[in-house]
């Protein structure tokens, strides 16, 4: 059936004019015109994207201006306009229910239904008889309560509006998260090299962001003026701040005990290079002095050349180390005084009273002297042990071949005495290590190989194997060997597997070697077959030389 357009227009416009007038009559006395307008405005805005014509309706202090509704109806599609008007009505009702309470909403609904029934009695939508008067559910409140109710309505409306805004923001965020999830989950973590597509980039970003936040070390990015651009949670914790945000914008040097040293460090770093293991004294926000181990590298950060640093709080470690060194020092120092007396007096006895003593008496004196001197060696080892890693010997590029030449020269006497053969590879690498420490390691391992010999000529083979991140050196001998159950024991200080009469020594040599190897980031171990020989191995990490 073809509808008569103008008549349809006027009929629908008439219906909604009456419906909206009814809305106004129901709400305005309770809420006041400002709040009522507000409420209608909010509903209009919510819907205007779907029904743009709604924003052309003009609401004045007396409700909807009928002309504007008529104007909206002319030139728009019928179903669309009708749907829009219905939605507006529903939305207003919903808003009234949320902001002004059920009672007013029920009253409004009843009034609306009545208008509909009166206008379209046959629609069947009505729950009310057209003849039934609008039930007055609430009496008009006394005049004094009106302003209060109105302001409450206004406040509810304001709250509702904020809620809606937040809901919108939340929806947007969820959409974003959804997109991210879809892009991150299906991609395998192992394909980091192909982080070229936007999906991969987003995934990599999330991955690194998690790393940044979860890191047990402080991570900080500073620009060339030492301004802090980025910091993670742990960095804030180290410097005694509550959040990383408080650090951003501050200058890194304000936390340094000796800022002048930092400048030279920064200047020393060239692009692409890193400087590692620098110990720095820092002052926290609460004024505590802490020791921090820092590794830094120049990076490109948001288009600028910046310094990325990883900070580890080693205050406690430094304190314990100092304490241990002090203890070892005073112990070895104070214990030396009585030793001098033992040795000196025993010798005195031998020299001045030797004739009065018999052979046993003289033997006892000699043993006191021997033990006093041995104890002196033990004390020296203890002191040496406590000093490793403490006295910061500079790691430099060292040619291992040269180190071995010197070690063999120092051990010449033992080599000649035992008639030992020592095999050294033609080509050995250059490593970054404190030279004196590397010399100590090889001297110790080689002198052990020359000392713990079986009844055969010592044959010693030195080896070197390049691994991805380190060099693995081996010293193999054909000596007495070590039973596997003693592998751990030989690295413990003053622990020996033989008497001093069988094999002299303090029992500290391998302990010192182990501590050196480990304090420079390597590992040490032994493989051995008793009676056949032992192979001691240790690793030296590959490192760039600190300029």
């Amino acid at each position, binding site marked *: 059936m073809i509808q008569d357009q103008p008549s349809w227009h006027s009929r629908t416009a008439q219906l909604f004019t009456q419906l909206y007038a009814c809305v106004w009559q129901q709400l305005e006395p309770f809420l006041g015109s400002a709040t009522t307008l507000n409420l209608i405005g909010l509903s209009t805005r919510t819907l205007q994207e779907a029904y743009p014509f709604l924003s052309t309706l003009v609401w004045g202090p007396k409700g909807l201006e009928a002309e504007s509704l008529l104007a909206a109806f002319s030139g728009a599609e019928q179903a669309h306009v009708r749907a829009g008007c219905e939605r507006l009505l529903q939305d207003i009702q919903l808003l009234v229910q949320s902001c002004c309470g059920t009672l007013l909403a029920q009253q409004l609904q009843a009034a609306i239904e009545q208008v509909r029934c009166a206008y379209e009695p046959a629609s069947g939508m009505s729950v009310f008889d057209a003849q039934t008067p609008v039930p007055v559910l609430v009496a008009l409140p006394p005049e004094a309560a009106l302003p209060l109710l109105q302001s409450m309505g206004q406040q509810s409306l304001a709250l509702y509006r904020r809620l809606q805004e937040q809901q919108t923001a939340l929806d947007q965020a969820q959409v974003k998260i959804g997109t991210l999830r879809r892009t991150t989950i299906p991609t395998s973590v192992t394909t980091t090299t192909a982080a070229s597509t936007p999906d991969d980039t987003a995934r990599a970003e999330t991955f690194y962001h998690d790393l940044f936040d979860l890191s047990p070390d402080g991570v900080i990015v500073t620009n060339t003026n030492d301004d802090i651009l980025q910091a993670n949670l742990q960095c804030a914790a180290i410097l005694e701040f509550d959040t990383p945000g408080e650090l951003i914008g501050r200058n890194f040097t304000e936390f340094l005990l000796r800022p002048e040293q930092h400048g030279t460090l920064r200047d020393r770093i060239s692009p692409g290079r890193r400087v590692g293991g620098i110990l720095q004294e820092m002052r926290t926000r609460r004024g505590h002095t802490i020791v921090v181990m820092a590794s830094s590298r120049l990076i490109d950060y948001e288009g600028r050349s910046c310094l990325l640093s990883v900070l580890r709080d080693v205050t406690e470690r430094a304190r314990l180390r100092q304490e241990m060194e002090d203890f070892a020092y005073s112990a070895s*120092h104070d214990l030396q*005084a009585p030793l*001098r007396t033992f040795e000196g007096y025993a010798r005195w006895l031998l020299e001045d009273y030797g004739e009065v003593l018999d052979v046993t008496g003289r033997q006892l004196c000699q043993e006191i002297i021997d033990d006093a001197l041995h104890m002196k060696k033990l004390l020296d080892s203890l002191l040496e042990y406590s000093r490793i890693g403490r006295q910061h010997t500079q790691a430099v590029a060292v040619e291992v071949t040269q180190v071995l030449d010197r070690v063999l020269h120092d051990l010449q006497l033992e080599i000649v005495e035992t008639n030992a053969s020592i095999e050294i590879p033609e080509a050995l690498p250059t490593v970054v290590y404190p030279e004196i420490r590397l010399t100590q390691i090889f001297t110790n391992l080689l002198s052990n190989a020359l000392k713990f010999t079986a009844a055969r000529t010592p044959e010693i083979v030195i080896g070197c194997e390049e691994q991805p991140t380190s060099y693995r050196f081996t010293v193999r001998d054909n000596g007495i060997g070590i039973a596997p159950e003693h592998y751990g024991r030989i690295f413990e200080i003053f622990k020996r597997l033989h008497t001093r009469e069988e094999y002299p020594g303090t029992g500290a040599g391998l302990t010192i070697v182990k501590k050196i190897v480990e304090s420079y980031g390597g590992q040490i171990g032994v493989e051995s077959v008793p009676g056949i020989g032992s192979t001691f191995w240790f690793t030296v990490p590959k490192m760039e030389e600190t300029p």
Partner: protein
Amino acid sequence: MSRLTVLLIEDNPRDVRLTQRAFVQTGLPHELRIVRDGDETLAYLQREGVYQDPSSAPRPDVILLDLNLPRMGGHELLRRIKQDPRFKQLPIIVLTTSGRSDDVRQAYEDGANAYLLKPVEFNRFMDVIEQLGKFWLNTVELPPEP
């Protein structure tokens, strides 16, 4: 010079004995005077108290100082002597078991003329005393009597 007058500042009587023996065994002509701490040293040098009689406190040619002293420490005593215009020209040789670099640096900063380590082995200690005695007795020119 015929004889080296040495003032030994040492609180450990056993060390004193060993030092005396070392000096005797070197056969160098010497006179060894002993004080046990900082206060005794200052009294000796200023000829106060029991040292009022100059013959009981001859001016030393060299002072041997142990750093590990009770009460006023060796470093403090060294500073006091070297800051006193009457005594600062006296050669002071630190003789100690401490080889700690902080101690060595501090001693030289405070004006020590030499820093020697006491070896545990008596024979090596005797070598040290012999070299020291010969050097200050025969090799160097000592500051003239005031």
